[in-house]
């Protein structure tokens, strides 16, 4: 698990139009510079908002990635809930003990 780098990859996307364009063009190429597991890499490339939440990504980062990927607010909240149904409770980070799966 490398939650730090998962969040770093999103932090850069949220801050930089250029990074966002690179991710949209070829997500795997954009992610090549980050130290990620295969699961994390796939979650970021898809993007799988629900799995990213379960992996422990802070919502203050995740909501902007979701918005950039076209998620409306309610769809974003539902994606996190569905992620917990599919993948179980949050595994790491700030939310490990909160949420429906706590």
């Amino acid at each position, binding site marked *: 698990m490398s939650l730090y780098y998962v969040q770093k990859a999103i932090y850069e996307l949220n801050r930089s139009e250029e990074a966002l364009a690179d991710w949209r063009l070829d997500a795997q190429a954009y992610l090549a510079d980050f130290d990620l597991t295969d699961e994390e890499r796939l979650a970021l490339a898809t993007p799988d908002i629900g799995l990213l939440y379960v992996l422990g990504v802070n919502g203050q980062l995740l909501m902007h990635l979701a*918005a950039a990927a076209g998620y409306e607010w309610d769809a974003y909240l539902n994606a996190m809930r569905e992620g917990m149904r599919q993948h179980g409770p949050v595994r790491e980070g700030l939310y490990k003990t909160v949420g429906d799966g706590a």
Partner: protein
Amino acid sequence: MSLVFAGVCSHGPGITARAQRAAPESKRKIDAAYARMREAIHACQPDALIVISAEHFANFFMNNMPSFAVGMADYYDGPIENPEWLRIPPRRVPGEKALSRELLETVMQEVDVAYCEEWKFDHGIMVPLHLLLPDNDVPVIPVNVNCQAPPLAPLQRVYALGQALRKACEASDKRIAMIGTGGISHWPCTPDSGKINEAWDREFLARWTRNDRSSLLDYTDAATYQDGGQGGYEIRTYIAVAAAAAGHQGEIWCYEPVPAFACGCTVGVMDLAT
């Protein structure tokens, strides 16, 4: 004293991004409270507005996370979020680098802070500015308190920051207004978004209005997390303002729990005249 105004308000992005989702009566009260604060700030004729906020990974990340940071630039751009998403148009917010430096030099006698010559404002500052300074006519000095990524500064150190800011304002010949912005209990951007612990919020606001240091600092992060969610860590911004206004008591002009805004929307002001 040259601290001419001290208050607090919410900054939840839903206040602008999902404005239509609040009950009309709640929305009316919230809008009226921000308008009252806007008028109160302008009535004080401030030379600058200090905004103590809790930014959300717009500028600061866990590679180098300051507990406290103060802006020292002549301008700041925002919002960093998509303006259509936040429903706040982009603007270049005026700063005042020389005044920032003057304040920093006094603050740093008491508290170690980072300074920033570049800072992109997120909703934590842009929502209040959009509602309080729509004409972009007062220079802003941003102050950040890390409320997102533990380990966080202990509350007594946040209080010391507020005291140091007060000293810095008093040492300046400028008229300086100050607001703290943040949520009380909230679980933003999570599946629990919309949950609000109103009783916990009201107890905190009662302590804030009494401006009683010992009761304001009588929270552990573990208890805050349990009762107020991860967003509850943002009580730090309110505590810093209380410290800056030590000796004075406050009044809550608005507290409206709005689940669609993911917080109890709050506007409160310290009475610096008595």
